[in-house]
């Protein structure tokens, strides 16, 4: 399930809900991403999505992850709008029969979300506002999955 929300969310409650009723899943992995303060240089973020398009593009990658890592289920909960430093931005959860698939599926999805997902991020700091683009590290992380192998080398 792909959900965009402009409201703060309770990651613990989401994990409880996601884990319930899974007789065949031996592993649930969750990743919670927070807005970093960058030592006072980033006071807040404003994250813009294109409703309809953004969910569609993320959903297409979730489908790829589901078949590539044999996932039983995926939840991606992503904030939009203004986000203060320290607040949660994104929650990704994967369920699979075994932990390796769940870990790798979650890692893959986060690398996609950080580098290629249709969001436009503006960072507000003491020096004003600036648009942010993926860092070299974000792109390199995402590139690890382009080798064709199920696991990055």
């Amino acid at each position, binding site marked *: 399930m792909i959900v965009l929300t402009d409201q703060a969310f309770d990651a613990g409650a989401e994990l409880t809900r996601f884990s319930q009723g899974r007789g065949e899943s031996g592993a649930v992995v969750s990743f919670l991403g927070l807005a970093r303060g960058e030592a006072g240089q980033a006071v807040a973020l404003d994250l813009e999505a294109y409703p309809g398009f953004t969910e569609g593009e993320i959903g297409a990658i979730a489908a790829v992850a589901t078949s590539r890592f044999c996932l039983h289920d995926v939840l991606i909960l992503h904030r939009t709008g203004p986000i203060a430093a320290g607040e949660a931005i994104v929650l990704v959860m994967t369920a699979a029969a075994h932990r390796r698939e769940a870990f790798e599926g979650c890692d893959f999805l986060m690398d996609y979300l950080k580098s290629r*997902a249709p969001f*436009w991020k503006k960072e507000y700091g003491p020096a004003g506002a600036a*648009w942010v*683009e*993926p860092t070299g590290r974000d792109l390199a992380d995402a590139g690890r999955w382009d080798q064709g192998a199920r696991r990055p080398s």
Partner: protein
Amino acid sequence: MARVLLFGRLRDVAGWRERPLDPAPATLAALKALIGADNPALAAALEAPGVQAAVNLILVRGDCALTAGAEVAFMPTMSGG
């Protein structure tokens, strides 16, 4: 009529986020020329590397015909979440 949406820095350059165009231009290229005609900075920004267009939520490469009611979005390089 067509509806044009701008995202990210394109919105800052244009000074608007959404604009109706009536009648709808016949093609994506014509629409781009029309919205850039009174704003050279926007015209240049639309040609910047990494800018993508979507018509009715589908990414389009190159030009395409537009039908009445089309929603056209211009998106700069996606920043990720």
